[in-house]
């Protein structure tokens, strides 16, 4: 990687907002985007007139059932302003603030509204059918795959390579759903046990129903501002210290599945920019992407918050609990809060923002926090997106 990481302009997150995350919401995609944007603006004491540029994000149009969905939701704030939609599959949620960052860091815009929306409920009776179109039409679709297969295959490889058991991995689901009990937007918050996960419907061994995050509707938004503007807006800006994003090839079955190289490269880029040399010591709170429970452990290792194959052991020791050494998914993550794809990634960024401002209320982690990282992943085990925030 050769990227210019010596960007002079500092950019801060100054506000964040969320809608409810639910299996079905009555609001249209643009109403959801508008609600989240309004929340974020109000939390920063701003109005739409104060915003220079807009970055929107939403995952495949096929969920909403509308093409140009990014433009469709953009009139919730982008009317008459420079607006762009970014898209890297599930990685979109973290890519939206990354793109917002370069709009501001380049000096192009002083204030940027980053909004991500997902409405999966229109695809009925279940959006699983829509996921069929992510597979290669020549070599994969003729085998009749289900989206969950690819995760099961990666999880099986991870379990084999790292000696992790289903019982240990289920503890991620237990932890995140419990954390989500304190989250006002949460859809799948619950006090469950490892047995509940193991006894839930078996879909594709080793994946049971409760190893997976739910199908959701929802939206999230954050406001980014250049340093001078950020200091005018708030006394406690949360700085974007580093960003990273990389893409691997589409041939997921030509690569070692036990370690996410695509996340690791993006993390290295972000840490280098942030001047972080030992992330496992310097990062205080993390929101790794957790659409499946093993994915959180997998991504913790990709983010170098644990050595390869070390995350299951640390999880058992309570290392990643809210009261632990390195709390992960204190929000409740996708497993607990819900997974409106693009909005879920941005919800994670919003959580790090609230954690670093000590505004997370009952979700606030025990330890003092200086640096936090949020990450998402997308496409066929391909796209890694990372953002490092600091207070």
């Amino acid at each position: 990687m050769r990227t210019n990481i010596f960007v002079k302009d500092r950019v801060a997150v100054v506000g964040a907002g969320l809608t409810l995350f639910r299996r079905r919401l009555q609001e249209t995609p643009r109403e959801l985007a508008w609600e989240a944007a309004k929340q974020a603006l109000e939390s920063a004491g701003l109005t739409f007139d104060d915003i220079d540029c807009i970055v929107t994000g939403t995952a495949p149009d096929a969920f909403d059932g509308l093409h140009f969905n990014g433009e469709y939701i953009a009139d919730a704030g982008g009317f008459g302003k420079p607006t762009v939609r970014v898209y890297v599959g599930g990685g979109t949620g973290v890519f939206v603030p990354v793109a917002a960052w370069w709009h501001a860091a380049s000096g192009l815009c002083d204030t940027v509204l980053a909004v991500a929306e997902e409405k999966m409920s229109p695809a009925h009776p279940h959006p699983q059918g829509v996921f069929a179109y992510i597979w290669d039409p020549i070599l994969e679709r003729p085998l009749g795959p289900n989206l969950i297969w690819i995760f099961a295959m990666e999880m099986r490889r991870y379990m084999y390579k790292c000696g992790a058991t289903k019982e240990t991995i289920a503890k991620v689901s237990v932890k995140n759903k419990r954390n989500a009990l304190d989250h006002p937007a949460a859809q799948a918050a619950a006090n469950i046990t490892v047995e509940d996960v193991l006894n839930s419907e078996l879909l594709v061994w080793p994946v049971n129903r409760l190893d997976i995050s739910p199908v959701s509707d929802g939206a999230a938004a954050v406001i980014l501002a250049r340093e001078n503007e950020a200091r005018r807006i708030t006394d406690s800006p949360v700085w974007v210290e580093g960003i990273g994003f990389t893409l691997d090839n589409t041939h997921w079955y030509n690569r070692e599945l036990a370690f996410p190289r695509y996340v690791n490269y993006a993390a290295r880029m972000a840490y280098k920019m942030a001047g972080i040399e030992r992330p496992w010591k310097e990062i205080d709170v993390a929101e790794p992407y957790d659409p499946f429970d093993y994915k959180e452990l997998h991504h913790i290792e990709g983010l170098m918050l644990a050595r390869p194959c070390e995350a299951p052991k640390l999880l058992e020791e309570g290392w990643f609990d809210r009261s632990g050494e390195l709390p992960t998914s204190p929000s409740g993550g996708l497993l607990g809060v819900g997974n409106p794809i693009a909005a879920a990634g941005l919800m994670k960024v919003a959580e790090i923002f609230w954690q670093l401002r000590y505004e997370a209320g009952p979700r606030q982690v025990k330890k003092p926090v200086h640096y936090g990282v949020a990450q998402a992943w997308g496409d066929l085990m391909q796209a890694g997106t990372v953002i490092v925030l600091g207070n």
Partner: protein
Amino acid sequence: MSSRSGRPQPGWVNPPGHYLKRDEMYSLVGLVEYPPRAKYLFSAGQAQSRFLMGLKEGKILGTRCPRCGRVYVPPRMYCEYCHTHTLEWVELPGTGVIHTAVISYIGTFRERRKEPVIVGVIQLDAPGYTPGGYEFAGLFHRLCGVTPEDVMSGRAIGMRVKPRWRPPEERRGDINDIECFEPIEG
């Protein structure tokens, strides 16, 4: 612009949105159902067309990068790492080891299957890669002769396998010309 108000933010405590139960959604005013009517014909392209022709003849073909020596299966027209044109075709023995294997109880649309199917990633024997390295030539396919116990115990991973071909008259130049990958006896 005003400064930030007190914490936590009032709006945040009650996130907006109106939840619908399943029945409520199906009884909404103005609900429109629309099944998309679109059909696609996908061309397999330069590299994969030849690969599919090879399958019809019972051969697994790959392309070799002239610069780094990686042999690609499935074949690419260009090397992803070197951005060179991969013109040289190589026939592989088709043998390999299981990289990962799972047991699916559901189909594409989440319907329960009558019989579970075992699928996985097969790491093929191909030159140009570091043994035990991150990248390898391989295919995603069904596995037969592998039991659910083999998958769950981890015995399946690392098992040596070879393709089980459909009879020549049934082959159509399709990934399904390989019925599955099965363990090599002995």
